[in-house]
């Protein structure tokens, strides 16, 4: 099941590990992404911490840790080809995988319907 944050990130849970990326809405708002800075593997973050940076021709913006946890894998492909964030935001354009400190935290995030309503409220 995919969950979302107000900061336009999607989070997909698999066991006790989540994959995190930015939503289609976010990539459209950013425009062409030209650079992605990813965290170090095995670094720990609390929810809301700045984990990655995404830079487009229009703006630079942060990607936050959706929940408490430890980085277990990063998407190296983004460093060579940041355009994946635009072309495949919800699949090949993922940013990092994080082992959650507490998988129950997922319950606090928005589901797709709630996120769509959140986006609709912004337009």
């Amino acid at each position: 099941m995919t969950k979302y944050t107000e900061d336009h990130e999607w989070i997909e849970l698999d066991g006790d590990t989540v994959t995190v990326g930015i939503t289609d809405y976010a990539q459209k708002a950013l425009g062409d992404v030209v650079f992605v800075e990813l965290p170090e593997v095995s670094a720990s973050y609390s929810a809301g911490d700045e984990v990655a940076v995404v830079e487009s021709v229009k703006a630079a913006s942060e990607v936050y840790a959706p929940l408490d946890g430890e980085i277990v894998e990063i998407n190296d492909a983004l460093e060579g080809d940041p355009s994946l964030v635009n072309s495949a935001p919800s699949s090949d354009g993922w940013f990092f995988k994080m082992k959650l400190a507490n998988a129950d935290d997922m319950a606090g995030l928005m589901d797709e319907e709630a996120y769509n309503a959140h986006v609709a409220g912004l337009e």
Partner: protein
Amino acid sequence: MSMNSQGRPTMPTPSNDTSEMEPVFQSFSGHRGLRLAEPLIFELGTCHTTGVDVEDAGDFELSIGDVERTAEIGCPGLSEPDAVRHFTRLSRRNYGIDMGVFPLGSCTMKHNPRLNEKMARLPGFGDIHPLQPVSSVQGALELMDELSHWITTLTGMPAVALSPKAGAHGELCGVMAIRAALEARGDAREVVLCPESAHGTNPATAAFCGYKVKSIPAQDNGRVDLQALKEALDDTVAAVMITNPNTCGLFESEIKEIADAIHQAGAFFYCDGANFNAIMGKARPGDLGVDAMHLNLHKTFSTPHGGGGPGSGPVVFSEALKDFAPMPYVVKEGDAFTLVEDGDTKSLGRLTAYHGQMGMYVRALSYMLSHGADGIKQAAEDAVLNANYVLASLSDVMSASFEGPCMHEALFDDRFLKDTGVTTLDFAKAMIDEGYHPMTMYFPLVVHGAMLVEPTETESKYNMDQFIRSMRGLAEEAREGKVARFEGAPYFAPWKRLDETQAARQPVLRHPVAEAAE
């Protein structure tokens, strides 16, 4: 491969044409009348030409070991007339305040009076060196002293540090002084508050000085939310950085309440004075409760910038901070001026190797003296009047972001372009075809697709009417769905729209001919 007249390889001359702009024929030279095609300097001349007489080095022995270069460097070699023509041709593709309206909001691109230039070239100012004995530069020191007098008088603040080299450097100076003052009273505070509409340099400065930055939201009227500010103020807050007038072109009308709340919390009030042009001679930051503020001489006091000259960002200080101001500073002892360069133990130290931008001091004081107190006040009034003229003349066809009059700049957003397919970027590029430098776009970030127009006091009504006519024309065409002129604009510029994405993703950092030669 294309060759130049001396047989050097060149890149093919790119076509600037578009179908609707296609001329009926192509010239044999590649030039298009007075629009001259100009290759890169690396493609000009030969490696064996020079415009300089260099004496033969004679016999010598190299002692640099195996790093000696044996292959040709391939530097461009041009005669003097060819070098002059190259740069003159390039300069004709440029746009500056001396060519026309330069409405770049937040940057205050005002006319640089030629009198300033004449004064700055006087040998007593233009030909001196910072290491000269102070007895031989008394006139220059007197000028710094007089400039300080004007700045402290205009701002109503007791002290000024002239040396910071630009706005962001001034911010650094101010926040370092705040840190020094807090440390002197044994008060470790960690947070600096900045409003959402702040110049990006504000949070960057705070972070650079080791502070954690927290954002204060704006109200719907574009001004700082006083209630939210009060709630965020506690004994961890070192300073609040606020621009007034702010980057939405609005005066922070609750500035006094804001200052009082900041001081009540034991924090300092840093005011970003980048927009002082709108209030000089009308309001004094000292009366508004400001503790430190930089002035951009290169905006407010007409010294050249944007490629035309170095910035200069003197910082004024309140009683509470003035002892922590940086060195050097000028003091008058009897009839003589001296520079205090060391020994001041409270001072935060030095921020510059020497004494700051002397040439800009001369130009700024020249502007002040030639305008006088009344003229400076009128310049602020005219800048605000001009911005409101633009705002009022375009409000029916574009979307003004906030109700009511503005200060020195008019802010529009992209609501009027909704569903037209035209973006703020397209609109800005179309302005190039109209012969104008585009306005500031996508800043401030608090409104969507921002367009920030600052005519300054420089523009006459005639110039503004011409400008407004173009802007109205563009806005009306966009709304009528006539979008051809926006797609891919500019069409009439020497270069068409550049592919920013490819330029960032796959930058070409070396000349392809040079690279292929290796």
